[in-house]
């Protein structure tokens, strides 16, 4: 199968059918040799979303509908869809009709060009400025800075992937924001393309300003994992470094003071000892982290094999070098 389209749905009874029509229309115009499938993942909707989708699925073998036992969140729904997808390429999109299925063709074209991850950019975003666009601007800037993958629109659900790559990216909790960052850990070639964006027609928005601290901690975690997943000891050593310098300075000062004859001070020496203890703790944490890495299955590390290419010929003219972000149009 060439293509799997994964759509998480949560209380979208109004959108299901128009969405299905739009996707099938888009698919019909695509030159796919081995066919495509559509995966609707019903994320525990409380309305008739599942029934609507099931009715469509009974008439069309290409449509598969997955029903969750309860609401597990958008990332989980995407993860389930991706786990079950059978296509060589996987395109994910929102179920609220704000993304336009007519853009799918562009994604396929980019993937055919050899990119592993293609990210949509809603350059003409139809959302409220203050509550949606500005926070998302800031978040994207921050994510770009911290992860080193300057995607302009991490929040856009419309993304395309080479199946082998995305199936090895860990997707849990709210990690969908960091897919490009994690994929780039595996050496994925990432492209960003402009996509259409429509205002909401049915239902209402399910996002709001989520708590900032979550994103901040997630970012920290991504930074740790993406920068140093292969050698966490180095990362923890880096954390320990300032405290090492501090404690060495304090303790040297105190020892010298002893020799010079003036009396040392207990609180100051004590503080130095605390910081020295922290150094040890952090270093040993690093060792523990190495152990965790050894025992875990870091599939994302193995994904480097999937994104590796045999280079027999010179790259085609105009193609971007590995790991570069390409901005088209």
């Amino acid at each position, binding site marked *: 199968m060439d293509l799997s389209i994964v759509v998480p749905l949560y209380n979208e009874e109004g959108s299901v059918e128009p969405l299905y029509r739009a996707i099938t229309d888009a698919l019909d115009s695509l030159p796919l040799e081995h066919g495509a499938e559509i995966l609707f993942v019903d994320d*525990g909707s409380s309305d008739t979303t599942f029934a609507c*989708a*099931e009715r469509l*699925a*009974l008439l069309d*073998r290409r*449509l*598969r*509908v*997955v*029903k*969750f*036992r*309860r609401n*597990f969140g958008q*990332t*989980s*729904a995407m*993860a*389930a869809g991706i786990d*079950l997808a059978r296509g060589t390429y996987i395109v994910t999109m929102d179920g609220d009709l704000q993304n336009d299925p007519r853009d799918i063709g562009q994604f396929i074209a980019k993937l055919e060009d050899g990119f592993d991850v293609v990210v949509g950019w809603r350059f003409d975003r139809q959302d409220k400025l203050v509550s949606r666009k500005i926070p998302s601007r800031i978040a994207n800037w921050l994510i770009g800075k911290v992860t080193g993958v300057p995607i302009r629109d991490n929040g856009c659900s419309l993304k395309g992937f080479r199946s082998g790559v995305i199936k*090895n990216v*860990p*997707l*849990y*909790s709210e990690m969908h924001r960091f897919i490009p960052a994690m994929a780039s850990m595996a050496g994925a070639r990432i492209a960003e393309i402009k996509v259409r964006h429509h205002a909401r027609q049915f239902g209402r928005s399910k996002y709001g300003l989520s708590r900032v*601290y*979550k994103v901040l*901690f*997630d970012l*920290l*975690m991504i930074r*740790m*994992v993406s920068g140093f*997943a292969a050698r*966490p000891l180095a990362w*923890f050593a880096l*954390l320990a470094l300032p*405290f090492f310098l501090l404690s060495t300075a304090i303790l040297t000062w105190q020892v010298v003071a002893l020799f010079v004859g003036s009396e040392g*001070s207990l*609180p*100051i020496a*004590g*503080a130095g000892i*605390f*910081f020295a*203890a*922290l150094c040890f*703790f*952090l270093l040993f*944490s690093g060792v*523990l*982290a190495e152990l*965790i*890495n050894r*025992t*875990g*299955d*870091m*599939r994302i590390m193995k994904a480097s094999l999937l994104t590796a290419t045999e280079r027999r010929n010179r790259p085609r003219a105009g193609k971007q070098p590995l790991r570069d972000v390409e901005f088209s149009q």
Partner: protein
Amino acid sequence: MSDTTEISVIVPVVKLLDTTGRLTRQYLDVLESTGRSFELVYVLDGEHEEFLEHLWAVAQSEPRLRVIQLAKNFGEASALTAGFESTKSPVVLTLPAYAQVEPDAIPKVLERLRDCDVAIATRAPSHSSSSRFKAARRRIFHWLVRIATGQTFSDVGCGVRALKREVVNELPLYGDQYRFIPLLATRRGFKVCEVTVREVEQGGIYDHHGVSAYLARLLDIFGIVFLTRFTKKPLRFFGAIGSTIFAIGALLLAWLAVQRLFFDVALADRPALLLTSLMVVLGMQVFALGLLGELIIFAHARDIKEYSIERIVN
């Protein structure tokens, strides 16, 4: 066991058990009365020689009774898991090894599986004072559980639970978690129903709750909060605590430094210096634990399925 067995009844025998041997008969009679095919599996958690003799005596005339003995004490969750693993029937019923509820109520619990995935018995207290005391204790515990998890149950500790096989397959149990079967099942998206039954008066011997038991329950609650809220994101838990401690410590430390540099307050004899640097150190340590937690989750992320699928069409 034949493949047509409808109900597997699992009785974990841990500490409390009915020594008279009357209960086994009662269970068999009640199960018989449901008219459905069943097997009764006793799982002995370690040595229970006397009870084993009794079970063998019953098993002489009762082919549907099976006994599994664990080699040593592993606890109730292990006993239950051993029972789950050794049976295949579509419905699993767990029963306590001592009289907790009136046996006549058991069919009522089984009945509820028609429209639920899990049915648990909820003990309504009888009128004696010890029973009322236990009921009050239970209410406080469940009030804490509700605050901690947002789920409202009134008796998660009752040993009478009917579960569909798919629930059993999706619930990993260890330690003291058997207590939280209804909470964990709800979290996986299963429908859990409560059936009110009459409690049986047990007399004093079964009812010694020391301080350690209360502490254990509190730890249970703490554990379930962590498990339900932060399993996937340990840094949100450790990070929030760690960075708060760190920030307070660092600010105070900076204040001490300012005082020393500009106001000429001597630093050397201030215990506050020790306290603040300890806070900085502690904060960093808690934070580092959170990072380690994140790494564990990340390294195993693909093994832990966060979602639970009810059905796939096509």
